[in-house]
């Protein structure tokens, strides 16, 4: 192989590797699915940071591929919480992505210190079944434990007439919760 060919081959390999690395480093876009009905929570209920307001949302799961059921799909009820964290509002599904147990928001400093070896700067969500931990300040991102990912997120459509409107859920949640 000539020096020129070797140079070209190395260049192509480098480009391929760079693209792959870039793809791995760029988070895949989150796909949301609509709720059957928007959930509304009074803004005043989430005035105080870290005081979650529970709600139940409804959606339809439409399986794709072989064995997919009829057009209506499966009715899915999703438990969530809306809270102020503290700069912004956050709406998260409280079903643990590991094995469907519901997570709890832990604000007690002593427990937080135990859960995060003294490193927790803000409240965490914890799964009672297998102790997976999620960062409440980072939109439910995975911190530790058996969970393969962070908590599923709802999308907040906006605030209308003093009501926080939640209208979508991460599509990936529908087959898991």
């Amino acid at each position, binding site marked *: 192989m000539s020096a020129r060919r070797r140079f070209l081959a190395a260049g192509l390999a480098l480009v391929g590797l760079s693209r792959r690395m870039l793809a791995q480093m760029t988070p895949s876009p989150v796909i949301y699915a609509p709720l059957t009905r928007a959930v509304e929570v009074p803004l005043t209920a989430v005035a105080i940071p870290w005081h979650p307001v529970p709600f139940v949302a409804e959606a339809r799961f439409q399986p794709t591929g072989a064995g997919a059921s009829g057009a209506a799909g499966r009715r899915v009820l999703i438990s969530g919480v809306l809270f102020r964290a503290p700069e912004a509002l956050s709406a998260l599904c409280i079903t643990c992505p590991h094995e*469907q147990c*519901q997570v*709890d928001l832990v604000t007690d400093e002593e*427990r937080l210190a135990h859960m995060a070896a003294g490193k927790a700067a803000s409240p965490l969500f914890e799964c*009672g079944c297998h102790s997976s931990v999620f960062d409440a300040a980072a939109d439910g991102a995975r911190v530790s434990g058996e969970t*393969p990912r962070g908590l599923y997120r709802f999308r907040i459509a906006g605030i209308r007439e003093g009501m926080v409107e939640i209208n979508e859920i991460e599509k990936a949640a529908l087959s898991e919760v």
Partner: protein
Amino acid sequence: MKRRLVPLVSTVSCLAAVASLVAQAPPAAPPSIQEKLYISLESTDNLAVVDLKTFKHVKTLKVGMHPHGQASPASQDKLYVAAEIGGTVTLIDTIRDQVIKTFDVGFGVEPQNGAITPDGRFLYQPSYAGYWQVFDTQKEQIVEYIHTLGIGHNTVMAPDGRFVYLLPIAGGPGHFARESLGLPRTQPTDVTVVDARAHKVVGTIPVGTGPRPGTISPDGQRLYMNVDDLMGFLVIDTAARKVISKATFTLTADEQAVRSRSHGIAVANGGKEVWSNDVVHNLTFAFDVTVTPPKQIARFPVGRQPYWIVPSKDGKTIYVNCPSSDELIAFDVLTKKEKARIQFPKGSHPTRMLTVAAPASPQRTAR
């Protein structure tokens, strides 16, 4: 002389009367048994001891990090507690409720819920990496490895100690994030049957999906087990080594719209009933297993996310724990009513548990 004789005669009379009373008294009661429940408080690295006579949390023992499954031999004087994160197994004296020692002999990745032969000699200790270790409790070393692949998790010992049933879970991405020690990650759909004397695999029982917790009838003829994607349990004929029936929880439309799993299963009422948990719907169900398929006879609201369930030694009480609300609940099997609850410290997360009929003193220990 007369004066001296009077007290003597009265003393002899008293002694005779006492002797007569003793002779008439019913025979002395056999030395008592202390029935207790040991429960892993996973988040605090503790083992709680609950006196089942008073239903009180009477003692807390520090064990390995993130305690999980427990096993006790027929003598009931010992308890082995596996620590998931600690990677150890702690031996407890159940007579005095003291830690005897902790074994750190390379129990692999996260030792889970083992079972011990009735004579107390061999502990079948599963590892998350996909195998069971046979730990010789006399030599204090692992003497055999049995590979099932999947994730070594739950273990059921036959009442006579002839066979041990290994129930590896299939797992998912979260489970597979752990070390596999070079073993391939698979999703087993079989129960592995092992000769508990020779420590050799003698068969498998196909269950079609990932095995979950299991238990066995008092006569050893039926294995009952939760499996993935079944809200209920399978009934297995252990002699034929095949599934012969299944029980399904009756759920409302709203409950069916929320994905859940069945986890934790116990035999009650002399083998006539099987009780099992529905984790996400916060329910426990009771089934009559004298009929085929088993018939649902009761459902109970419990605490948040019931996890494990065990019977009392006489099968007349069922205990359910709920790690998300840190509760232990006792149900009367006959009346199907809740009897009492214990509230553990918030965030302690009670998970695996075992009832033990510990001898009251070492003299009664049979080994």
